[in-house]
C-alpha cells in the first residue's frame, strides 16, 4: 500500500441493547480520499459512524486511527485527535447563535478558524448572530459541517449531508465537500442517495442489514448491476 491508512475499522460488532446491528463491519479510509458508505434506510450507516466516533462503542472488534487503537475512547478525545462528526439529524446547538455554535468548539490547531469557515460558507457569516434553532434545514447542515471544521479535522464523518435538501442546495454542498477534500481532509460519507454520492467518492462500501456487501472503486460499483439492484434499489 503506497498510501497512508488513516482509519481502519476492523470487524466491529455493535449492539443497541440486545439487538445486534453491525456484523463484523470492516472498512478503511486512506489519506486524502472520500469513501462512500452506501445503503438503504436502516442499513447501519449511522450506526457505523457512531461506532467510529465512540458514541455507540462496539462490543467487539477495533477502530484504529492513525495507527492507534481508539476503540472505547470517549467522543471528545476522538474529536481532539482530529475526527470531525456531522450527524444525520443536524444537531446544531439550537439555543446558541451561529457564531457561538462555532466558538464553543474545541480548537485543536489554528488551521481552521471562524474566518476560514465563513469563507467556505459565506452565507453563515450573514446570519452569524441568528439563533441556530431558527435556521432552515440547509443552513443547519452548513452549520454542522462548519462546526466540525472548527476542530481542524483530518477525518470527517459526514452522515447523509444532503438528506431532505433542495437540489440547488445539494449541488452547492457537493461543491463544498469537494473543497474540503482539496483542503486535505479525508471523508467518510454515508449516503443512500447513490447518484449524489457517486459524484464525490473515490471508493465505496455497500452496507445492508449491518453487513458489508461490497467494497471497491466507484467504477467497479457502477459496473456491478447485481449489487446496485439488490442493495441500492437502482
Amino acid at each position, binding site marked *: 500500500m503506497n498510501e497512508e491508512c488513516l482509519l481502519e475499522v476492523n470487524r466491529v460488532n455493535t449492539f443497541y441493547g440486545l439487538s445486534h446491528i453491525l456484523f463484523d463491519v470492516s472498512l478503511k479510509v486512506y489519506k486524502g480520499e472520500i469513501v462512500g458508505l452506501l445503503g438503504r434506510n436502516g442499513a447501519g450507516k449511522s450506526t457505523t459512524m457512531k461506532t467510529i466516533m465512540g458514541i455507540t462503542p462496539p462490543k467487539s472488534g477495533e477502530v484504529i486511527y492513525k495507527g492507534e487503537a481508539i476503540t472505547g475512547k470517549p467522543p*471528545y478525545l476522538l474529536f481532539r485527535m482530529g475526527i470531525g462528526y456531522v450527524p444525520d439529524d443536524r444537531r446544531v446547538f439550537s439555543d446558541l447563535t451561529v457564531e457561538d455554535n462555532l466558538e464553543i468548539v474545541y480548537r*485543536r490547531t489554528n488551521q481552521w478558524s471562524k474566518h476560514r469557515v465563513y469563507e467556505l460558507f459565506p452565507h453563515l457569516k450573514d446570519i452569524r448572530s441568528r439563533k441556530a434553532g431558527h435556521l432552515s434545514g440547509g443552513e443547519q447542515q452548513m452549520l454542522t459541517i462548519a462546526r466540525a471544521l472548527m476542530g481542524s479535522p483530518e477525518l470527517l464523518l459526514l452522515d447523509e449531508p444532503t438528506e431532505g435538501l433542495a437540489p440547488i442546495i445539494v449541488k452547492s454542498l457537493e461543491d463544498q465537500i469537494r473543497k474540503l477534500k482539496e483542503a486535505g481532509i479525508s471523508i467518510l460519507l454515508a449516503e443512500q442517495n447513490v447518484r449524489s454520492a457517486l459524484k464525490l467518492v473515490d471508493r465505496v462500501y455497500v452496507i445492508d442489514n449491518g453487513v458489508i456487501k461490497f467494497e471497491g472503486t466507484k467504477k467497479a460499483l457502477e459496473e456491478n448491476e447485481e449489487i446496485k439492484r439488490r442493495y441500492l434499489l437502482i
Partner: protein
Amino acid sequence: MDLYAVLSQILVGLSRTVILFIVSSGLSLILGVLRIPNVAHGSLYMIGAYAAYTISKYFGGQDTGFWVALFGAPLFVAFLSFIVERSVFQFLYEREHLMLVLLTFGFSLIFGDLVKLVWGGEYKTVPVPRIFQGYILLFEHLHLPIYNAFLIIIGPVVALLLWLFVNKTKMGKISRAAAVDREMVGAVGINVSWVFGVTFVIGCFLAGLGGMLVAPTISVTLGMDHSLIMESFLIVIIGGLGNIWGALLGALIFGLTQSLGILLWPQFGIVFPYAAVVLVLVFKPKGLLKSTW
C-alpha cells in the same frame, strides 16, 4: 388598608425574594444543565448558614466576620459539593430521574446528620454587622432595615453575574448547549464531565450564598432546609424548569404573595404562595417561562 403597611410588606417580600431567587436559581441551573433534581440543595443552603455562623464567630462575630463569611461560607459549600460531585454524582448522570431523586434525598439525610454532629442541636445566631444595623427612613412612616436594603441590592447583582456567566462566558454557552444535547457537545471536543462539574459547583455555591445571607435574619437551626427545598422546587416549577429568569419570576411571586398574604390574612398568610403556585400551574402547566426540558 394602610399604604405604608403594604409598601413595607412589599419590601419584606422583596428581601425574601432575593434569598429564594439565589437558592432556586442554583437549583434550576443544576436541573437545567445536569438534569439532576438535587433534593440535597436545601441541605447545602443550611450548611451555608452554619458555616456563616462558624466563620463569623471565628473572626469575632463582628463586621470582619460577616465579610469573610459572605465569601467563605458559599466557597465552603462549593468545595463540599465539588467533592461530592467528583466522587459520586459524575458517575450517575445517565441514571433515571427517580434514582437521582432518591440518591440526592439520601445525601440530604446524610448532610442533616453531619450538621447535627458538627454543630449540635441548639439555635445559632449570626450577628448583623454594625454597618447594616438600624433602619433607613424611606418615607415618613416607612422604615427599611438596612440589612434588607443590602439584600435587595445583592439580588440584582447576583442575577446580573449569573446572566453574564450563562450568556457571555464560553463555559456558560457550553453549559447551555449541554443542557439540550450533551452527546453532541462531547462530539465537538468538549469534556462534558467537567462542564457538568463546574455547573454543579456554581449551583451549590448559590445555595451556600443563600444560606449565608439569610443567617443574620433568622435563628440558624436544624430543619431550616425542609421548607426551603419545597419552596425552591415549586419556584423552579412555576418559573419553567432550568430557566434562571423563571426562577427570578417564581421567587418574586412566592416572596410577594407570602408577605402580602400575611397582611391580608395574618393567620393563614402561608397559604397564599401555594395558592399562587396552583393558579400558575392550572393555566401554565409547564411554567411561566420556557423550560429547557
